[in-house]
C-alpha cells in the first residue's frame, strides 16, 4: 500500500538550532497517525515542511508519493490542514472565511460543510457573524470545518481539540472515526494522550527534533508497566525473587503491589501458592510510556 506521508531523513536548521534531525517515518494510507512530542520537539516544523510552508535543510517529505517541495501544489491539493495556532480574518464572517478557503482549495462545492457544522453544533446564524465575535471553541470549529469541508484524502490536524468542550471533543472523535472509515488518512499532533490513545492506530514520538519511537498504539501500551495488586485471605511471605521485569512496590502479608513490564506468568505462579482473594491489574496507559520518553528515557 502506498504511504500517505513519507519522511526521509528530514532535517531543518535555524542557524545553529537544529529543529528537526533526520526524521524518517511513514504514515500508511487510511490510518490515524498520532504525532507526539513535548513543546519544541519539532512537530510543527515537520508539519510545516509537509505543507511547504518552510523548506527543509536536507532530506525530503512526500505526500502520496509526491515530493512536498518540488510539487507542493499537488500535495497541498490532497491535504486538509488545521493549524495549531489557528488565525482567521476577524473582519470576515465564518461563511466568508469558509468560502474563501474553499475557493483556494480549488474545490467547487463544500460537500461536507453542512454535515460538519451540524455535527459540531455550529448554528447557521453564527456563520453570518464576524469571526472577531467568535469564542475560542467556535474558531476551532471553523478550523475543523475548513480542513475537512472539501473532503481531502489526507488531514493534517495540529492540536485539533484545543479549545473544544468535552461534548464537542466527543463529536470530533466521531468525525475522525467516520473519516477513517471512508479511507481518509489522518495525521494528528496532540498533547492529549487519552485522545491519541483513543483515536490513533500508530504514533510517532519526537524528542528534541529526533524521532525516538514509531509504533502501533497497542504496542506502545504494552511497553507501559502495569500495576498489579494481589490481595490474600491470609498472611503470606514476601514474594520470591522475580525477574527484572517485576518491581515489587509493596510486599505486606495480605497484599503484594508489583509493577510489571511484559508478561505476568512468573508473578502469578508465585502468587498461586497462596490463598488469593483478589487480583487487580491496571490497564496500561499510553501516558506511562510517553512521559518516560518526554523525560529523556526509554521505557
Amino acid at each position, binding site marked *: 500500500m502506498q504511504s500517505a506521508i513519507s519522511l526521509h531523513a528530514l532535517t531543518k536548521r535555524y542557524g545553529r538550532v537544529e529543529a528537526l534531525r533526520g526524521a524518517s517515518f511513514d504514515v500508511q494510507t487510511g490510518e490515524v497517525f498520532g504525532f507526539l512530542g513535548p513543546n519544541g520537539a519539532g512537530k510543527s516544523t515537520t508539519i510545516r515542511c509537509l*505543507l511547504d510552508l*518552510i523548506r527543509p535543510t536536507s532530506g525530503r517529505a512526500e505526500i502520496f508519493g509526491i515530493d512536498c517541495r518540488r510539487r507542493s501544489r499537488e500535495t497541498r491539493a490532497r491535504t486538509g490542514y488545521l493549524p495549531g495556532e*489557528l488565525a482567521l480574518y476577524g473582519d470576515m464572517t465564518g461563511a466568508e472565511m469558509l468560502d*474563501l478557503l474553499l*475557493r483556494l482549495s480549488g474545490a467547487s462545492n463544500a460537500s461536507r460543510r453542512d454535515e460538519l457544522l451540524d455535527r459540531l453544533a455550529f448554528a447557521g446564524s453564527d456563520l453570518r457573524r464576524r469571526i472577531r465575535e467568535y469564542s475560542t471553541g467556535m474558531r476551532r470549529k471553523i478550523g475543523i470545518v475548513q480542513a475537512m469541508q472539501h473532503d481531502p484524502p489526507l488531514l493534517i490536524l495540529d492540536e485539533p481539540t484545543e479549545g473544544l468542550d468535552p461534548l464537542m471533543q466527543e463529536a470530533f472523535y466521531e468525525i475522525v472515526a467516520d473519516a477513517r472509515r471512508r479511507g481518509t488518512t489522518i495525521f494528528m499532533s496532540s498533547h492529549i494522550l487519552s485522545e491519541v490513545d483513543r483515536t490513533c492506530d500508530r504514533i510517532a514520538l519526537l524528542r528534541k527534533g529526533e524521532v525516538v519511537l514509531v509504533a502501533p498504539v497497542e504496542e506502545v501500551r504494552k511497553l507501559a508497566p502495569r500495576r498489579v495488586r494481589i490481595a490474600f485471605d491470609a498472611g503470606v511471605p514476601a514474594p520470591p525473587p522475580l525477574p527484572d521485569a517485576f518491581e515489587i512496590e509493596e510486599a505486606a502479608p495480605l497484599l503484594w503491589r508489583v509493577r510489571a513490564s511484559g508478561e505476568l506468568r512468573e508473578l502469578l505462579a508465585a502468587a498461586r501458592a497462596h490463598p488469593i482473594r483478589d487480583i487487580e491489574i491496571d490497564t496500561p496507559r499510553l501516558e506511562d510510556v510517553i512521559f518516560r520518553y518526554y523525560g529523556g528515557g526509554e521505557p
Partner: protein
Amino acid sequence: MSGFALVRHALWRARTLILVVALILGAFQWLITLAARTFDRTGAFKQILSIIPPMMRALAGDALVPMASFGGMVTIGYFHLIVQAALMAVAIGLTTQTASEIELHLVDLLMSRPVSRAWLVGRSVIALLVSTVAILGVMALGTWSGLHLFAPEGASWPEPRLVLSLLINLALLMLVWGSVALAIATLSRRRVTAISIAGLAALVTFLLDYLARVWDPMKKIAWISPFHYVRQMELVAGGTLAPRDIAVLGGITIAFIAIAFVVIARRDL
C-alpha cells in the same frame, strides 16, 4: 484558478481604504477648484504675484507664474505633499499585507491550499494597480466635474495633457513605493517593520531630493532618489514628461516586484 480568490480577497479587504482615500482626494479636487474660483474672482492671484519676494520667486522657478492662475491652482491637488504622502501610504499599506499575514500566521491557512506562493505577490501587485487606477481616476473625475461645476467664466482650465502627465507621475510614485514596500514585506516577518522601513526610505529619499534642489553638493547623489524623477513643477511650468524619468521609475517598480517574487518563492513562511 484558485489564485484569483486571493486577488478578490485582497481587493475586498482593501475596498474601504481605497474608497475612503479616493473620495477624500476626489472631494479635495472640488474644494481646490472652489478655492481657485474665489482667488480668481477676487484678483488674489495678481496680488500674490506682486508680494512674493524675488528670492521666493527664484526658488519656485518657472512654475510660479502658471501656478498663480486658476488653471495652475487647480493642479495643486496632484502634487501637494500631503496628496503624495497619502497615495504613498495607501500603496505601502496595501503591499505590506503579506508581512501581516506571515506575522499573524494567516499565511499558514492560505498557503496550505494548492495556491502558488507567487500569488501572494501577484495579488498585491494587482491590488496596487487597481487602487492606483481607482484613486487617480476618482481624482481626475473630481477635477473634471469640479471644473464643469465651479470654474468661473473665461478662466483658463488646466491642459488635459498636463493633468494626465501629473496623474502619470502620481501613479508612478504609488507604483514605486508600493513595489519597494512589497519587496520589503516579503523579507519581513512583521508588517510594522516593513511599513517602517519603506516609510523611512521614502522620507530619506524625499529629503535627499529636496536638498539637492536647493544645495549643490547633494546634486551628485540625488539620482538615487525616486523623487528626483518626479518633476511636477516642471510639468506645471510647461515641460513634458521625460521618457527617461518614466523608464527609471518603471524600472524601479519592475525590479522591486521581481525581487518580491524571488524572495517569496524562497523564504520560509
